[in-house]
């Protein structure tokens, strides 16, 4: 198994900082400018200390008192990732100027790679086959069966940069019920069985605004993740 057998499911870029109190005075300027650049912007959450907006149902931007974040979701084509990098760089820079920030206390990039299966047993077997976990065999707790839903999690830190790696299997349910009397569509019930390779790359030191290029940092972090993932996946 290697990373190419997974699909990149979501990317989240997040920057944390000490409270940017100017948010209370200038948040409107940020969202006004973002809507001018992306007329399809829809706000999904609005509170004094946190506003979240979606662009084209492809990107999500969040500006908070102590946090800026941008997300994008499956399907992630190279063109979409390139646009996302531009979005992160441009709008982090706008937020930084607006809030007059000088330091970022934490910068993080989270990538979730996902592989789907027809049942949780197959997903679990695949994770266990990587031999990252030592599982006792035989009957335990009065139950003779196969282990399901394994989770493996570990962190590496060098004092400046850190990385958390999670491998997990999960079962997700989607249920959509039509309103009473609605005949336009049937009730939807779906179950998904996933093997997620979830990576969180982050800084452990405060970084001056003048030291940080979002586009360079994200690209490099993504490259390092692609390069070194074989250690876990056995590829």
């Amino acid at each position, binding site marked *: 198994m290697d990373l190419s057998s997974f699909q990149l499911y979501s990317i989240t870029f997040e920057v944390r900082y000490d409270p940017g109190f100017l948010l209370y005075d200038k948040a409107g300027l940020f969202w006004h400018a973002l809507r001018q650049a992306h007329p399809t912007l829809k706000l999904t959450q609005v509170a004094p200390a946190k506003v979240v907006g979606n662009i084209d149902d492809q990107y999500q931007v969040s500006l908070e008192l102590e946090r800026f974040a941008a997300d994008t979701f499956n399907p992630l084509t190279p063109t979409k990732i390139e646009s996302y990098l531009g979005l992160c760089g441009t709008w982090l820079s706008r937020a930084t100027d607006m809030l007059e920030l000088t330091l970022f206390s934490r910068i993080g990039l989270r990538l979730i790679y996902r592989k789907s299966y027809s049942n949780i047993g197959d997903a679990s077997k695949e994770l266990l086959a990587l031999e990252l976990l030592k599982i006792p065999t035989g009957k335990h707790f009065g139950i003779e069966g196969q282990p399901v839903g394994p989770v493996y999690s570990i962190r590496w830190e060098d004092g400046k*940069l850190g990385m958390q790696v999670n491998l997990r299997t999960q079962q997700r349910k989607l249920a959509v019920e039509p309103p009473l009397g609605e005949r336009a569509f049937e009730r939807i019930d779906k179950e998904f069985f996933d093997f997620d390779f979830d990576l969180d790359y982050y800084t452990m030191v*405060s970084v001056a605004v003048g030291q940080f*290029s979002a586009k360079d940092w994200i690209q490099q972090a993504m490259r390092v993740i692609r*390069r070194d993932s074989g250690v876990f996946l056995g590829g």
Partner: protein
Amino acid sequence: MSGSNVIPFRFQSGAHQTELSARQTGNLEIAAQTAVVINAAPSREQVSSAESIYPDLEGSSTTALAVALGLLQEADQLLGEAVSAAENDNLIAADDAAQRVEALLPELFCCRSLGDGFGTVILSIYHGLNNLGGQPVSKSQIAVMAEAIRRLRREPLLDYDAALVLASKLERSGMSVDPPSLSIVGELLLD
């Protein structure tokens, strides 16, 4: 509020503290008012060099940032040698090192997409050295150039205002940081 007992509740959550106050009036009642206490001071050590936060600078050697950081490291080292030579009154060696820094500046200028601050500092040093008209650089000028390059190495995406402060320091050391053509325009305007 007189006659009522105020009982503080304090919850610790990460770097933030949330403090609730409750009044005891027979039965315990949480007051409607809540005070949020947020630590405003930076809680983490600050990184000293830009290089250390980028996960794979070697693998991205063609990007403006990687090229700039490589050249700035070289310029920083040369200016360090120039400062040492100047302190030992070896002004010829100091000037030689400064000239080698000058040779790096056009390539550094090609990395100006990093920001206006970066371009401003590089151009100021470039014109400052050019406008000396063959005169050797002084000890103080070398020291200020070294400070400017070190700052850029630490903060390559330096903001424009901070870059102007560095340009002013270069000017105060006796360097003219404007392009020569600008003085001709100035004279024409005065005429």
